């Protein structure tokens, strides 16, 4: 799974990326070690109101003073890439086009943990 995100995370200026379901659950989260604290804060957000507002989009970009959130929607998930203001955004967009079709292979973390527990217990 790490390989899927390696190319995006390898782009200079990419701070992290997240995959969030339409219901607002965080499926996956990968961040640069310098942004662990921010990752933790983002994982605690209730994303559902945001995903509701973003329901009808194909893609979006949110520009802040010192970062940009690139958001791409698939059928059931949103891919969110967080980049610094000097990152090559076109490279991020291109890589996300490649990355998104691979997301169907990703399953929610909770389901995977459930499977693991089932194996251990039974």
């Amino acid at each position, binding site marked *: 799974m790490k390989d899927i995100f390696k190319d995006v995370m390898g782009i200079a200026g990419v701070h992290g990326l997240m995959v969030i379901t339409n219901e607002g659950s965080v499926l996956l989260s990968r961040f640069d070690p*310098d942004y662990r604290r*921010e990752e933790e*804060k*983002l994982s*605690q*957000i209730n994303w559902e*109101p*945001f995903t509701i*507002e*973003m329901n*009808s*989009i*194909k*893609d*979006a*970009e*949110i*520009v*802040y*003073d*010192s*970062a940009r*959130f690139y958001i791409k929607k698939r059928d059931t998930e949103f891919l969110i890439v*967080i980049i*610094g*203001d*000097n990152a090559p*955004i076109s490279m991020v967009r291109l890589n996300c086009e490649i990355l998104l079709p691979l997301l169907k292979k990703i399953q929610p973390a909770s389901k995977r943990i459930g499977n693991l527990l089932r194996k251990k217990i039974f």
Partner: protein
Amino acid sequence: MRPNVLIVDDDQAFLRLIQKDLEGFSESFNVLTADAGNAALELLKKTYVSFIVSDLRMPGMDGFEFLTIILKKFPDIPVYMMTSYDKPKTKDVVIKSGAAGYLKKPFTAIELFGEITKTLNKKAEGGSLHNVTLETFLQLIEMEQQTSTLRVVDKKEAQGGVLFFRNGELMNARVGDMQGKAAAYEILSWSNVSLSIEQDCVFQEKIIQGDLQAILLDAMRVKDELAEKNEMGDDAENSEILLDAPLSETEEDLAEAKFEPPVDRISTKKPETTVKVHPIKEAVELSKLSPIDTIRMKIKNSIGDRDGILDIFHDPNWDALIDQASNIGNAFNCGRLNVLYVNREKDDQFIIVPGEETTAISISADAPWDRIIDVLG
């Protein structure tokens, strides 16, 4: 106006110490400090800085990342890198990365003062002229096909901008982190300015298209319109440039400097709307142009007629999304929400500008939305 020198280091004790040590040179320059690269960039957007000294190793944005951003967004500001982790090749790497100089910690305030004055004197090497309007002076540069970097200080608003000329052609302009034609118009809208000249230009590529005469005419038209609307016109008799002398200031200059507001009292407050602060915008606000007209003018000035804009209107339907996006930005600690681009499934695209009233810009499929975001972001 005394130049501002910015020192960036995550070591707060060092910042306090160096600031105190440099107090003795306060007649030559003001010392500003920032404890992180991001904080420094925020300060640079609002304050005109002439020289930067940055630590190499800092948590979060390190010195190299900071230097890269400065070279891109503020290419005229010389950056010295400093470090206590001096390895044999560190200096080479730092200089090759684009730094103007390198200082090994520990260093004395005298050493730093020497580097600062050497650099600042070079920035004002072009001498001085008086009683010439900015427009006339720029035309002289064009006629003489000069290569130079002009640092223009708007005395009225206590902020600065830079015009870059190569062989008499206006290559680029910068105000805060804004570059290009919009920045040039802004500088040319200033009436009461001082100017320093460096006989060099960092730009090889012409970023501002069009010739200087056309830009000057456009800028003068905008200036006249604003002056009429403001019914001010009181700057007309003061529209002369007074060039900044090099650091060896005369007593008269120093006396004048005493009337400048201290840097820490220069207003850095941004307006409620999210479009970046600059004099054109402030003048527009004064003249009671609507935020929609302001946005339209900014885009037109920067991109021209092929902006792909279909409509601009207030639309509160985006408020909930803006609230959510602001919350997310707060969690990531990445500053204020400036602008959103939304491409919807029905292939309609919008650029959303937060403000007292949310503004939606409907754009065509082939609109240069990236550039519009840059203008508004």
